[in-house]
């Protein structure tokens, strides 16, 4: 039954090749729409790969953000490019073959090197997991990834929230584009949205909650919430004018602001920056995650909609 032990490896090989094939097709397909769809498919397969690698968090994030939000953004952008861009002249859109060939050869050489290095790295090493395990008790949450994300390396996460906000500010600063069209949505879609949006709120809350001891967390939850916002938008909801001003902006900055505020406030209690006092880690983390979820959802929805309010 030796072949049975090889079965997982075979599956992995197939997955890996699928990844590469999808990536290749996504990058070279002459039709942009097809390219985007293939890219989304790539994201989904990547999700599977992450599951195979026991990285359920990343799988969730990959599907929600990598494939979902990115895919939605790409499709929305594509829709705004249509119809002129649907038929693209492949030859004009690529560098001349005389350039392509050396680039390809160079890349193959470089990547062979990189591949060899990766091969070299194939020495089992625990990384920091032992250290994380050793101090997980102090982290306030039982799930290592969340502990790293919101406590051990919370500073990164704070800035990551800032990156999202920054992207939105950037998009708004650029946007001459009007709002998404105000045409009446498909009734079926609208109905589904009305059904799904409230459920998504619950799912998002659940993801935040579950993140404390299992895969999940603010970013996955935020993307679910963002999707809810997008759906509501598609089903014809509009923010009233009074809400698109500072109330909306407040929601957008809430994540960073709460995170920063808590991170700074602890200094007043004799703690180091972003160092939660004993016993307060879990409530602090949950509060931060909730605020972050809200902001991430709002930011993602706003990014999708594109035009500034």
């Amino acid at each position, binding site marked *: 039954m030796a072949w049975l032990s090889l079965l997982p490896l075979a599956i*992995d090989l197939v997955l890996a090749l699928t990844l590469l094939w999808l990536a290749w097709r996504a990058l070279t397909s002459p039709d942009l729409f097809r390219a985007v769809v293939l890219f989304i498919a790539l994201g989904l397969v990547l999700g599977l790969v992450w599951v195979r690698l026991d990285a359920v968090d990343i799988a969730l994030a990959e599907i929600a*953000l990598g494939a979902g939000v990115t895919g939605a953004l790409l499709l929305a952008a594509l829709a705004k490019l249509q119809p002129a861009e649907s038929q693209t002249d492949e030859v004009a859109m690529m560098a001349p073959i005389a350039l392509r060939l050396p680039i390809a050869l160079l890349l193959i050489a470089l990547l062979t090197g990189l591949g060899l290095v990766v091969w070299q790295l194939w020495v089992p090493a625990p*990384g920091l*997991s032992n250290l994380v395990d050793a101090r997980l008790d102090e982290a306030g949450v039982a799930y290592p990834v969340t502990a790293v994300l919101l406590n051990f390396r919370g500073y990164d996460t704070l800035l*990551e929230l800032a990156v999202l906000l920054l992207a939105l500010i950037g998009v708004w600063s650029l946007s*001459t584009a009007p709002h998404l069209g105000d045409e009446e949505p498909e009734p079926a879609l609208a109905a589904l949205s009305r059904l799904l949006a409230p459920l998504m709120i619950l799912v998002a809350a659940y993801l935040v909650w579950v993140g404390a001891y299992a895969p999940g967390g603010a970013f996955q939850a935020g993307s679910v919430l963002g999707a809810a916002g997008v759906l509501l938008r598609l089903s014809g909801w509009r923010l009233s004018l009074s809400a698109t001003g500072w109330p909306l902006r407040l929601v957008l900055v809430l994540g960073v602001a709460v995170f920063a505020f808590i991170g700074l406030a602890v200094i007043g209690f004799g703690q180091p920056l972003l160092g939660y006092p004993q016993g307060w880690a879990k409530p602090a983390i949950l509060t931060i995650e909730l605020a972050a979820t809200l902001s991430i959802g709002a930011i993602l929805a706003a990014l999708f909609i594109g035009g500034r309010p």
Partner: protein
Amino acid sequence: MNSVLVFALAGVGLIGLGLYGLLVQRHLLRKVLAFNVISSGIFLLLAGLARRAPGAEPDPVPQAMVLTGIVVAVAATALALAMMLALRSATGRTRLKDHGDED
């Protein structure tokens, strides 16, 4: 040879394909796609190798890093797409001008 190595090498492959796309393709949307493919490749390398220790839980630190990375990539994609649309509405082009000195 095992699955971790397979995926790490696949990550290298993705980086390569993405780089090729980024350099060769001219349409900005494709360049954005290519950037995302590169990122995915790097993430695969970063978090894939986190499971090297046999039988143990995967190292959570690279996983957290990849989560951060994914969010950053989404943000960058959003900004890049918005910029592409703005460029298109200003110039009608969806590719970069080769010699950007004068417009």
